[in-house]
């Protein structure tokens, strides 16, 4: 699709008022450029419907505005006395039926294509959690979480906003180009929706149920989207980023992930000094805990408890580990046992026990976490 039809460059007028948004803002008027065949067909369907609506608009409103102008009392127009016309009334019932059939036929064929998730070459399981996506490449051991990468300082206007503000993640979903990718989606807590506009895929991820969707993208590139179903306080901060790479690069990437996974397992097999655990824990905390409990450990009053000074965190180690591993049902506190490695869990718990005002001086080793998993 050509770019000039899609967007007009930002007029200087608003900038002159001192109101314009930061660079990168644009007056996009239509669906984003399609990257898949389905998105292209949706785009074309939308264009078709828009033209039909525009035609109907003219047919209805040109006569109406003509009458509003010509048949005014102030011009001396006297009212005619008619209030029925069976032939006309039948016509304006039947003609719309025909138009609707004309719309239904192409729509139906796109629906059937969208629903056809068979014969896929790669299946990725997508698990949604408040407020991140987890991707698992079925048939391999590769699994990772994808978090918002935009710094809190940009959101709070303390730093200039980057080009992909709110649409950037730490680890994107990587897929090969030219392959039919099937997504199977579920959620752990509340309903989320995985959406990449350029793919024409939006599918709710529903706790306790599995839904599927598919896409095939041909052009390598980075494609961005967002969670589309209200999922709580950080709903706006749960982007989806997909990186489509040529198949050879994808295969290499997958191997790297497997090697990295083995390294993580090896790293979890030994003990660490407390200071190193705390240091590693700080990074884990920032990625997985700070969205709710905040970097300061003060939480958000009324919504998320503070960890700084928390009796649970400063109390016995077992209870602290239990809530991190298993979560707290009915709240936003997730079970992290499956999400993080033994080392990451040990590190983050050690960090929480020694950060801010919590100077307990004790920590936990990866092997102790591993023992609890059994």
């Amino acid at each position: 699709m050509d770019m000039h039809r899609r967007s007009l460059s930002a007029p200087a007028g608003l900038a002159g008022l001192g109101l314009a948004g930061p660079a990168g803002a644009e007056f996009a008027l239509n669906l984003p450029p399609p990257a898949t065949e389905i998105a292209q067909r949706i785009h074309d369907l939308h264009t078709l419907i828009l033209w039909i609506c525009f035609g109907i608009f003219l047919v209805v409103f040109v006569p109406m505005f003509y009458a509003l102008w010509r048949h005014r009392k102030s011009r001396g127009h006297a009212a005619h006395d008619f209030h029925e016309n069976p032939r006309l009334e039948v016509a304006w019932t039947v003609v719309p039926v025909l138009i609707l059939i004309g719309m239904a036929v192409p729509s139906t064929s796109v629906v059937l294509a969208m629903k056809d998730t068979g014969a896929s070459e790669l299946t990725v399981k997508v698990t949604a959690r408040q407020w991140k996506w987890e991707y698992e490449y079925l048939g391999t051991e590769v699994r990772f979480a994808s978090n918002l990468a935009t710094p809190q300082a940009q959101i709070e206007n303390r730093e200039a906003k980057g080009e992909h503000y709110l649409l950037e993640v730490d680890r994107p979903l990587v897929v090969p180009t030219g392959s039919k990718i099937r997504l199977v989606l579920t959620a752990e807590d509340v309903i989320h929706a995985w959406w990449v506009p350029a793919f024409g895929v939006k599918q709710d991820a529903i706790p306790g149920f599995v839904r599927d969707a598919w896409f095939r993208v041909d052009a390598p590139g980075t494609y961005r989207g967002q969670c589309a179903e209200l999922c709580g306080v950080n709903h706006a901060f749960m982007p989806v980023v997909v990186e489509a790479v040529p198949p050879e690069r994808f295969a290499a990437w997958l191997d790297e992930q497997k090697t990295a996974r083995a390294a993580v397992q090896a790293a979890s097999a030994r003990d660490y000094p407390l200071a190193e655990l705390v240091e590693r824990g700080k990074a884990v905390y920032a990625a997985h805990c700070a969205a709710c409990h905040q970097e300061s450990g003060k939480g958000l009053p009324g919504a998320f408890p503070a960890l700084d000074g928390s009796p649970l965190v400063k109390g016995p180690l077992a209870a602290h580990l239990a809530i991190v591993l298993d979560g707290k049902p009915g709240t936003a506190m997730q079970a992290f046992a499956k999400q993080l490695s033994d080392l990451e869990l040990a590190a983050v718990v050690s960090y929480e026990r020694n950060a801010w005002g919590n100077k307990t001086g004790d920590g936990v080793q990866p092997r102790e976490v591993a023992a609890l998993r059994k």
Partner: protein
Amino acid sequence: MDATLAPHAHDEHPSGLARWLTTTNHKDIGTLYLWFSLAMFMFAGALAMVIRAELFQPGLQLVDPMQFNRLTSMHGLLMIFGAIMPAFVGFANWQVPLMIGAPDMAFPRLNNWSFWLLPVAGALLLASFFVPGGALAAGWTMYPPLFMQGGIAYDMTILAVHVLGLSSIMGAINIITTILNLRAPGMTLMKMPLFVWTWLITAYLLVAVMPVLAAVITMLLTDRHFGTHFFNAAGGGDPVMFQHIFWFFGHPEVYIMILPAFGIVSTIIPTFARKKLFGYTSMVYAVSSIALLSFIVWAHHMFTTGMPVAGQLFFMYATMLIAIPTGVKVFNWVATIWRGSLSFETPMLFAVAVVCLFTVGGFSGLVLALVPVDIQLQDTYYVVAHFHYVLFSGAAMSIIGGVYYWLPKWTGHRYDERLGQWHFWLTTIAFNVTFFPMHFLGLAGMPRRIPDYALQFADFNQIASLGGFVLGAAQLLFVYIVVKCVRGGEPAGDKTWDGADTLEWTLPSPPPYHSFTTPPKID
């Protein structure tokens, strides 16, 4: 009623607060409903001002994300249940007895109770802002499991919605009974003014679906507190089932909020075209078919939940069918205008704007009916644009037009026509500046219900916010015009509008406290 009863004027009633608390008079109760809804309209509108202020620029400026979610949820809930629905019941109270030549509503005491439940529910909802954890932040649609994560305010919301539902059901029963039993002799069903017809059908919709809403929020309540698992997959329940039941209520609810608006527009246009409504019979059938279809389209709110292909196709086709009776109504309005003798007092301006702008909302509805396009646009600002074109420029602007139309009858004074025209143009222009760009935002990929957004959405959000502030300020002018008209003004005369032909215009303005104690003769 007893037509042989000797007419004797007894206009005495308690004065002061006792009058309003104990009144069983349809005019008093209609007035109460209308003031209540105006107050809620301004309050929920103020919430929207904060929403637009936060969205003026990317980044978080005024409110934190939790507070933002509370604002959007409560804005929706209060506008629907506090502003639009009570306003239409207020119109029904004032106008149905006057238009069918009845002395009052069929159940005057029930009528009093129906109204006085509203402030109770309103107080509960307002109080919920101040309890620990804050007001409802899970969207007005209350989807579980997110709804389960809320605090005490969520239970208060359930209770408030129950009370509002009770009020609506009783009001609807009262309206149905009044219309079916208290029409003046000679007024057959097919001679009723169209406004009365639309309310009759709306009242049946209310009786049919408000209990469904009551059921589904009760299930939420028992899931929250009594260990049931209706919507909890871990206990064998299904969160999507909530959406099915909710929208089985929710879609007819949409028509509950638009059919009386059609009735108002169908009253105003013939008056100012000085011509009979075109296609009265087909209007009645169109309203009835819209009401019937509303029961079989609910899942079009849920296309992205994932449903069998047959389900998606069925709900798509059924939804598209609604375009036909809706089209018939628009064509009939245009034909009524055609070759009339038109004048453009404020009510007519609003009615014409409703026809145009509601049609725009109808077009975006048609776009959203198509499953593939809906999957792109579901939960984006396109949907926000769509439902404000049908609910603001459809329902709310009809209500405002109706107020201008009947205010002279209700108060005995003409409103300030010059200010009315100003209010119209400010509202219509600001409305379009606010909501038209939202179509583009949705197409470009901006999700709804977010306090912060990517940079590419900044410009249109800024425009929408500026429009929104003007739209909000313009409604202060409306309040001023109404108050000014209530307090005095040029005498309205019995028949304020020369083209009007319904029964209320045969009475003095304002009508006596008890009117039509002897039923008028209809030929």
